[in-house]
């Protein structure tokens, strides 16, 4: 399956619908990165949401930067606080 990559802010209710989920794949990541199935309806959804398209490399870089910040913050936590949440793991976009 091929994908489109875009930066879109989740606006809440009906940002995507149940029908959207049936029509194309949608996956959200940190940094407002959305990975959308590359078909006619997926492309139209990105346009309708005023999404800013990125290449896969660009989108991965945005996620990596956010993740690096989170991992640095986690590393600085006390041992007690670390119990409550495991270290953010690396994310590889599809």
């Amino acid at each position, binding site marked *: 399956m091929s994908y489109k990559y875009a930066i879109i802010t989740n606006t809440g209710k009906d940002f995507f619908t149940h029908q959207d*989920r049936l029509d194309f794949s949608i996956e959200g990541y940190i940094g407002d990165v959305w990975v959308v199935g590359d078909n006619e309806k997926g492309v139209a959804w990105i346009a309708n949401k005023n999404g800013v398209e990125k290449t896969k490399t660009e989108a991965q870089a945005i996620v990596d930067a956010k993740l690096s910040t989170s991992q640095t913050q986690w590393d600085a936590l006390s041992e007690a606080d670390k119990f409550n949440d495991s270290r953010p793991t690396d994310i590889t976009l599809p």
Partner: protein
Amino acid sequence: MTAYNVIRGLKVKYLGSDPSNPENGEVWYNTSSNTLKIKNVLIPSGTGTWGSGGSLPAVNNGLAGAGTQTSGLVFGSRTGPQSSSAYEYDGSSWSGGGGLNNPQGNNNGAGSQSAGLSFGGGPSGSPTNKTEEYNGSSWSNVNNMGFTRTLAAGSGTQISAVVATGYSNGTRAQTYDGTNWSTISNVGSPRYSVGAAGDSDSAFVMFGGYISGANKTLTEEWNGTAWSEQNDMNNARQLYSGGCGTQSVALAAGGGPDSNKVESYNGTSWSNENNLATARRSGAAGSQSGTASFFAGGRNGGTDQSITEEFTTPLSLGVGTISTV
């Protein structure tokens, strides 16, 4: 008392197997599966999907949930310090609810938007046994659990709930009758960050979890008398607050490490459902329905979230289970 066969014109039959062509509304007891069944009620039919819901007013992680997709409630949080915040959902947007008396994150939730229950929670160093009841506008402190615990498995109603295991309680479990917590027999496998579903203190299922460095697929049911091991989940996950529904129609959403996996349980086995759009752990699922629920907040990639997704399973008329024994 009016007999069922008088008001409906049919007797409840005891049968070794389901009848081949039951009438609509016919009720029978299946002695092989020990289930009371009825023909032509709405039952899950097909795979459920997620749509986006209204976002929480703030990012939250480690919060508890109650209610349904159109009448939901979340409360507590461990975003920043332990929080007393509560929010009510109407199927479109979240509004502020009455705050907990005791700020808690990683607490458990049960009940409805107008009759909610919060129990346990807190950081690992100081888990709590505090219990509070919600009346739709404010929380009241009630009798505490017999043991402190956080990241436990909990579900039920405000007057009939179960809590089990959690940190650092090993295998201990208790039931709540609306007034007091009572100790019941221990679960089989100790763990914490466990998902749960159930609508009473005699019909409860707990699943997933984490212990000794490993995520779990284990499923255990409580029938009011004893715990029994059931078929494992398909995906090992830490499912704190990610379970909802009943013992026979349960849902497990998201979980840790950051997961978008969703599975449904029919009282016997687990099936994969469509994934969440955004993988998250420690978000809150509504407690009451496994077919029309929500999953709000949580944590993804080390970042707390405010997003809500709504789960809907298509329903069709069929043979439903009324209760199990």
